[in-house]
């Protein structure tokens, strides 16, 4: 190599050395930052234990408008009418945030406080342990497994018409423990939901009220629901429910107990272009405590303490329609029948029909227009002075409900 060649080689080496070094340093800096970030993410993943807590808040808000006309017709006398117009949708107003707290994939806490316009209450507060496939163990305050309405359909953004079906609230929520699960059965499916709770409580006049955290007797109440989904596409569900337990203690109600049984069905299928939705529930309640105490003069009286409640509803939504506005409409109808014991102080035969037109802004946001008319005939004890009185009600609801 000549001196000139050597000089050129040195110059080129120095030149590239000076230009490449900063570039390499820069690249090395980027790599270093990237590696640090990957290390941090790897550490983060390593720190994520199976039992990590996850808290989320969802909830329901339902409000609206209700115009009511009530006509009371005494036996042999002219009827008297009264009208009310209420914002806040009367007793259907609901504001219920729900806290879901998942701890890993085995534990779930559910808590739903609720403000209904008059009271601040709790719909449920329970913990569930996902013990095995098809077996969830829960404890706390929860909706009893009886029928389908209270546990699945009562939320304003799910219900197709504005009011709840009258008389369907029992047995409600209770304190206790239970197990539930859904399991395959070939191409069918079945589910069970069983609980052991404090139970309902008998009032002196023979009415039942919801349970408290302290039971009024030593007997616990068993309730449960079994359901079968006979088709592989889950379009039909048929359920049977039962409840049995003590409802009081002390004379004269030592042996007082309540028995409930019921059946429900749920059919949802698109019969193109209409989504057809049929739901129904029937329940019967028998209480054997006797005698009861009249609220008017505290004297003893007896009656056959049997009640029944039922509803059937159908709704139709043109989901496969051409026009977006039409696809979001849903037409709903519901019939409600509620009978409380004749010759008791709260005896009545109640019938209600609801006709509704809903507009769905999204899958969980709905505006409902419902017209409801009901007729109630008083069947109470002769001494109440109300026997035979007929009460007719006409209600218009405009209700907005949203789940977030």
């Amino acid at each position, binding site marked *: 190599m000549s001196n000139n060649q050597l000089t050129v080689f040195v110059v080129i080496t120095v030149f590239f050395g000076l230009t490449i070094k900063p570039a390499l340093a820069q690249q090395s800096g980027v790599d270093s930052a990237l590696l640090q970030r990957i290390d941090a993410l790897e550490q983060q993943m390593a720190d994520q234990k199976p039992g990590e807590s996850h808290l989320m808040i969802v909830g329901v808000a339902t409000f609206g408008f209700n115009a009511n006309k009530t006509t009371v017709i005494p036996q042999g006398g002219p009827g008297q009418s009264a009208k009310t117009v209420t914002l806040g949708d009367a007793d259907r107003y609901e504001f219920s945030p729900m806290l879901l707290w998942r701890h890993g994939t085995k534990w779930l806490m559910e808590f739903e406080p609720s403000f209904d316009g008059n009271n601040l209450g709790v719909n449920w507060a329970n913990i569930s342990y996902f013990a095995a*496939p098809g077996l969830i163990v829960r404890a706390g305050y929860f909706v009893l497994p009886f029928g389908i309405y209270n546990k699945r359909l009562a939320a304003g953004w799910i219900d197709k018409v504005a009011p709840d079906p009258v008389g369907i609230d029992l047995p409600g929520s209770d304190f206790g423990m239970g197990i539930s699960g859904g399991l395959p059965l070939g191409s069918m499916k079945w589910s069970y939901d*069983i609980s052991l709770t404090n139970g309902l409580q008998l009032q002196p006049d023979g009415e039942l009220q919801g349970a408290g955290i302290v039971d009024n007797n030593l007997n616990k109440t068993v309730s449960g629901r079994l359901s079968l989904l006979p088709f592989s596409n889950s379009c039909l569900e048929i359920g049977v429910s039962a409840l049995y337990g003590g409802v009081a203690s002390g004379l004269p109600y030592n042996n007082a107990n309540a028995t409930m049984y019921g059946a429900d069905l749920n059919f949802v299928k698109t019969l193109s272009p209409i989504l057809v939705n049929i739901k129904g529930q029937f329940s019967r309640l028998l209480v054997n405590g006797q005698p009861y105490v009249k609220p008017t003069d505290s004297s003893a009286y007896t009656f056959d303490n049997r009640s029944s409640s039922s509803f059937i509803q159908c709704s139709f939504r043109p989901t496969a329609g051409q026009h977006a506005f039409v696809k979001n409409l849903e037409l709903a109808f519901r019939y409600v029948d509620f009978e409380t014991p004749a010759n008791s102080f709260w005896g009545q035969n109640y019938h209600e029909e609801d006709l509704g037109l809903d507009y769905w802004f999204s899958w969980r946001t709905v505006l409902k227009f419902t017209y409801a008319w009901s007729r109630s005939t008083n069947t109470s004890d002769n001494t109440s002075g109300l026997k035979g009185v007929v009460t007719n009600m006409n209600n218009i609801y405009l209700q907005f409900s949203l789940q977030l």
Partner: protein
Amino acid sequence: MKPILKRKMPLVAFAVVVALATSIMVSCAESQKVKAKTGAQLWAENCQRCHNTPSPASFSHDQWTTIGMHMQTRAQLTDEERDKIVAFLRQF
């Protein structure tokens, strides 16, 4: 029947039903037709049993896992249904 036995009837009934449910549950199996169902199919079939089918964009991936568990307690979904539906909703 002795009063104490009568008082224990709900507990006995509860225990019997639990034992029966446990024995039946271990003997159940799903058909190939059901096993082959996708998360999208199960999402369309099961959610609308009670409410409209939810948009996958409504919640985060992690939240869907929580909601899947909540829905299982409400609608008694099978474990496989829950897992497939949640996996489908988490894809978006």
